């Protein structure tokens, strides 16, 4: 049985030795060579005090899809404020499957990661900015359109703008019309920007 957070609010020293050992065992199991053992540990470790740190550390190195899924499910259950920034680091990973899994996890995290997403829209890496716009796809908050408008007004990278326009096709209102026209003028030779912007403008005007 793991070390239950609610029973160990004061200090780790106040916990019973057998419970500490149990969490230590789970931490060791999370690094086991056997993927089934790691997956089981990832599912059970959530009641341990530093579960978020241990899970995040393992996530960045984990290559087994089932274990990764178990880690992300456990992380989502923790509601720990450090999770958002940890997941943001994973968006920079060379591992496309990990990035994909993390994008899906971000979509499930909801409002608590909004400040992180907002700051990531200014990330120097355009790929990270594209991932963030894709994550916004799941947000149906009124701010999302304004964020997307700022992206197409300010971002210099064509693919970041293109991803934002894809989403404006769905959520854009009259407020997006002039920014879309400006975007078309900014990327006048890009066929995709022209196509997607025209589609967004058509849908906004027809709605």
């Amino acid at each position, binding site marked *: 049985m793991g070390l239950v957070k609610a029973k160990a609010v004061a200090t780790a020293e106040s916990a019973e030795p057998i419970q500490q050992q149990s969490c230590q065992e789970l931490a060791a199991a999370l690094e086991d060579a056997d993927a089934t053992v790691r997956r089981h540990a990832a599912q059970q470790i959530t009641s341990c005090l530093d579960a978020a740190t241990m899970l995040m550390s393992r996530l960045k190195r984990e290559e087994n899809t089932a274990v990764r899924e178990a880690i992300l499910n456990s992380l989502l259950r923790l509601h720990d404020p450090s999770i958002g920034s940890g997941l943001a680091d994973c968006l920079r990973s*060379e591992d*496309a*499957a990990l*990035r*994909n899994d993390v*994008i*899906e996890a971000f979509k499930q995290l909801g409002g608590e990661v909004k400040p992180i997403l907002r700051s990531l829209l200014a990330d120097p890496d*355009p*790929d990270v900015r*594209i*991932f963030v716009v*894709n994550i916004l796809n799941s947000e149906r908050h009124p701010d999302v359109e304004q964020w997307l408008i700022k992206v197409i007004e300010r971002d210099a990278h*064509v*693919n970041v703008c*293109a*991803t934002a*326009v*894809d989403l404006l*096709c769905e959520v854009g209102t009259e407020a997006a019309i002039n920014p879309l026209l400006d975007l078309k003028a900014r990327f006048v030779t*890009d*066929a*995709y*920007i022209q*196509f*997607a912007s025209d*589609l967004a403008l058509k849908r906004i005007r027809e709605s």
Partner: protein
Amino acid sequence: MMDGLIVKEGVVAKRILIVDDAATVRMYHRGILESAGYAVEEAINGIEALEKSLEAPFDLYVVDVNMPKLNGYGFLSELRRQEIPQQPAIMVSTEAAPGDETAAYRAGANGYLVKPVQPAQLLTYTRLMLGEAIR
């Protein structure tokens, strides 16, 4: 329809599957390819693409990288494991780092295009992959 192939004016059109979670991108690629006479179908992720491919393999796959459920690498890896006719695939990505292109080829791609894709570029790659004359 004849044996799963589309027939237009006596000519069998090559079947192409576009795999992308972005509806706008699918529409864009479809417009380019259909205007050149290809028969186009769509899938919104790797799982749907795999299901469609197992029903009737396509002549060419145009595949995005980042998609929910099963991404482009996962789809191509699974496709290449199946005992069906193995036709070429073009991977289309926003990511231009050399590692991404290598990963695409390792997964089973035959060509790699970085977005934004221009119409002439997509058609040239398509014709090249299908062994047709480049116009």
